[in-house]
């Protein structure tokens, strides 16, 4: 069975679609079909949870002599407003 902690969303989604394909095979062994079904449902649940908490974070890369710094958008506006880029 899959370890969910290490699973990323893309892999999960891929597996979900793969399971769908497998289930489309009508000759599938019943026990295997049920196992696949359960696995698929778990993965769907996993993905849904991940998606529900999905957020976008925005940061601005600022380059100076020392290297790169990440700043919030507002802060970057402050810093750069005098020399607009």
């Amino acid at each position, binding site marked *: 069975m899959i370890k969910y902690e290490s699973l990323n969303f893309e892999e999960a989604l891929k597996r979900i679609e793969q399971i769908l394909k497998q289930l489309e095979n009508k000759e599938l062994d019943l026990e295997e079909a049920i196992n696949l079904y359960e696995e698929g449902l778990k993965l769907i649940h996993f993905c849904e949870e991940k998606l529900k908490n999905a957020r*976008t974070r925005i940061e601005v890369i600022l380059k100076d002599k020392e290297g790169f710094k990440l700043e919030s958008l507002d802060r970057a506006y402050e810093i750069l407003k005098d020399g607009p880029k």
Partner: protein
Amino acid sequence: MKNLQEISFVTEEREKLYFTVKEVTQDIKTLIEKNFSILWIEGEIANLRYAQNGNIYFNLIEEEASLKAIIFSSQKDITITPYLKNGLKVLCLGRLNFYTRSGECYFIVRRVEPLGKGLLTLKKEELIRRYKTLFDPNRKKSIPLYPKRIVLITSLFGAALQDFLKISQDRWELEILVYPVRVQGEGAEKEIVQAVKDINTYFSDVDIIVITRGGGSFEDLAPFYTEDIILGIKDSKIPIVSAVGHEIDYTICDLIADKRCATPTAAAEEIIPSKEEILYRLNLYQKKYAQLLEIIISKREKNLYEAKIELESKNPFKMIHNLEKKIREFSHKLTLEMEKYLVSKEKELLEIKNLLRKRHPQEKIRFGEERLKFLKNRLFHSTKTYFAEKEKRLESLAQLLKSLSPLNILQRGYSIVKSYPKGKIIKSAKEVKSGELLEIYLSKGRLLVEVKKVEE
């Protein structure tokens, strides 16, 4: 003709008036250069050639007119000269120059402006021609479907950033980094190229780089039509999406990027997966799972049912029963057939028997015997009748004979004379001679007599 003669007359009569070549060419030079100072000339480039010294020579032509033109290497407008080509319609600024040494007039060009297509289009065409292989669709990297970290290379103060962020807002579990650059004006392309380089070097875990800005004039978009952009982008390890300018025209940046989106908004929609959409899809998958499982289960049930039916049909008791039934049926049929056969044979036999009986010899014998008996009877009766008849006839004949017998006549007194011993009946006296012996038959007894006399 008359005029010509007159002229020749005049020239011969008078002292000849003439100019030197130098004088004439000098005059022409003055004439031309004074009358035409700085001017614009519209024409089509023809016979374009690049000299070793860097000068560019061509003819400006228009239908049946042609003018020689030069762009001196020192005065070359480097933004346009690479895009000159034969057939291009241009507007040139310059002055006319007459060269006394060669006797030729040249248009010394200072500025060239393409007509029709515009400089950016020309630059674009030239760059596409030169870097053709870099625009090969097979060279393009695929864009990750589910990015976790992307970088926007754009102006921090442009509408493009706002448009992009508006769409991407909580659309996906995503980190958006903004690398601020200038997106128009001199040298903007260098900042963009540097940004691509920095991100590849220092932020190599980024999934996608998006270079974006909103629409603008051709001049505004000029940085995106540069060779620098091509060379700066082509080797990026991270896939690059370009969403530059307006929807209609593709910039060089759009063409070299791995993916082109029409607008910043479109870029956000196309690159960042929508959580709502995926949730909807997941929901759909869940339903589909249930349906598919249902199908599999019902198929198995069907199989089971079929197996059951099959098993039942192979039940040995049932099989025996069926076989017995079959045997009974066969036996019944056999009896019927047999009977039918026997009846038909019996009938046949009877017919033969009848036929045989009809032809039995005993019958013939009996028939023969009967016939024999009949014939015997008939024969018996016939003979009897025959004899009776004959007897009767005999009797009547005897009667008749009796009545006719000479003896009867003799009784009535007649006699019969016969010769003796011959016994010949004598009917005439001539048959007898005297002395012969005669026998005379009387009704009772006979007399032997001797003839004494014959009388006739």
